């Protein structure tokens, strides 16, 4: 079992290059922690193997980790070695009233999500574990994992903040917008039809001041002209450019795809 969220048209390389980590990030961590080895075709035609097939591998610089989330800008991912987990025996979705309290009570949940005010804890493990946890949490229990449907809306933005600020971020979602918040992770996806740019700038300012970001996932081109998709330039932009140069000196791999137009 690979704890990523994929659609029918997803590819392994795409999942790694996007590095979005999926709904189960609270329990299984980010994508970059489970890519052990990568074979990369660089922009200037070198085939580079980095990392190692086993989990206990520390040779060389952590290029596999670099490739996760690189959005194809460092090269084409030809092959990966991924760390997998065993399938669980049982799974359940438990509706709760208070996401923050559930996060403190539940033991290693897959996720604690708040979707437009409805909070739910996602559990998996042995049947006995799941039953005991569901009972301890109280609330309505549904068998299996009922993940939220993808957000609809012309504008889709994702806020990333330190995990403890997730409730605060939820409070700042623009009025009338739908949201999906992952407690314990610090990610709030939000979607809506009408975008009030000033309000979104405020939200971005708050998120960035906290050390996070507000990023545009999808929006009409006109919106992206008045609201930068990525936000404030990162201090490490110079270093990032040099890293990009090290892998793609001729600039053919998704040029301009990364923040800062790298």
């Amino acid at each position, binding site marked *: 079992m690979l704890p990523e969220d994929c659609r029918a048209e997803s590819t392994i390389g795409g999942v790694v290059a996007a590095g979005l980590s999926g709904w189960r990030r609270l329990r299984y961590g980010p994508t970059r922690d489970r890519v052990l080895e990568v074979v990369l075709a660089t922009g200037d035609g*070198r*085939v*580079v193997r*980095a990392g190692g097939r086993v989990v206990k591998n520390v040779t*060389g610089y952590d*290029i596999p980790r670099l490739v996760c989330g690189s959005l194809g800008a460092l090269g084409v991912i030809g092959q990966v070695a991924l760390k997998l987990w065993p399938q669980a025996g049982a799974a359940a979705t438990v509706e709760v009233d208070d996401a923050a309290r559930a996060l403190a009570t539940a033991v290693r949940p897959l996720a604690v999500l708040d979707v437009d005010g409805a909070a739910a804890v996602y559990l998996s493990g042995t049947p006995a574990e799941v039953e005991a946890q569901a009972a301890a949490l109280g609330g309505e229990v549904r068998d299996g994992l009922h993940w939220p449907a993808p957000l609809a809306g012309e504008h889709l933005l994702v806020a990333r903040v330190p995990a403890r600020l997730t409730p605060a971020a939820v409070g700042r979602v623009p009025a009338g917008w739908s949201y999906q918040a992952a407690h314990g992770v610090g990610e709030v996806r939000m979607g809506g039809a009408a975008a009030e740019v000033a309000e979104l700038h405020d939200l971005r300012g708050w998120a960035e001041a906290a050390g996070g970001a507000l990023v545009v996932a999808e929006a009409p081109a006109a919106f992206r002209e008045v609201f930068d998709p990525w936000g404030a330039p990162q201090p490490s932009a110079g270093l990032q450019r040099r890293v990009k140069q090290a892998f793609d*000196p001729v600039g053919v791999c998704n040029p301009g795809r990364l923040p800062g137009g790298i």
Partner: protein
Amino acid sequence: MPLVFGPVDLDAQARLREAFDPGGLLNPGKVLPQGSRCGDYGRPVPTAAGS
């Protein structure tokens, strides 16, 4: 290191290291053996198209 990685792989690691340490000031010779870079073999490094 040359026992684990081939010359192309070592060169990629050397280039990444150079991105962090262009001047070669930080612990030169550590982790990567001398002679990993393309330049050490006398091979040309491709530059951006048009330059």
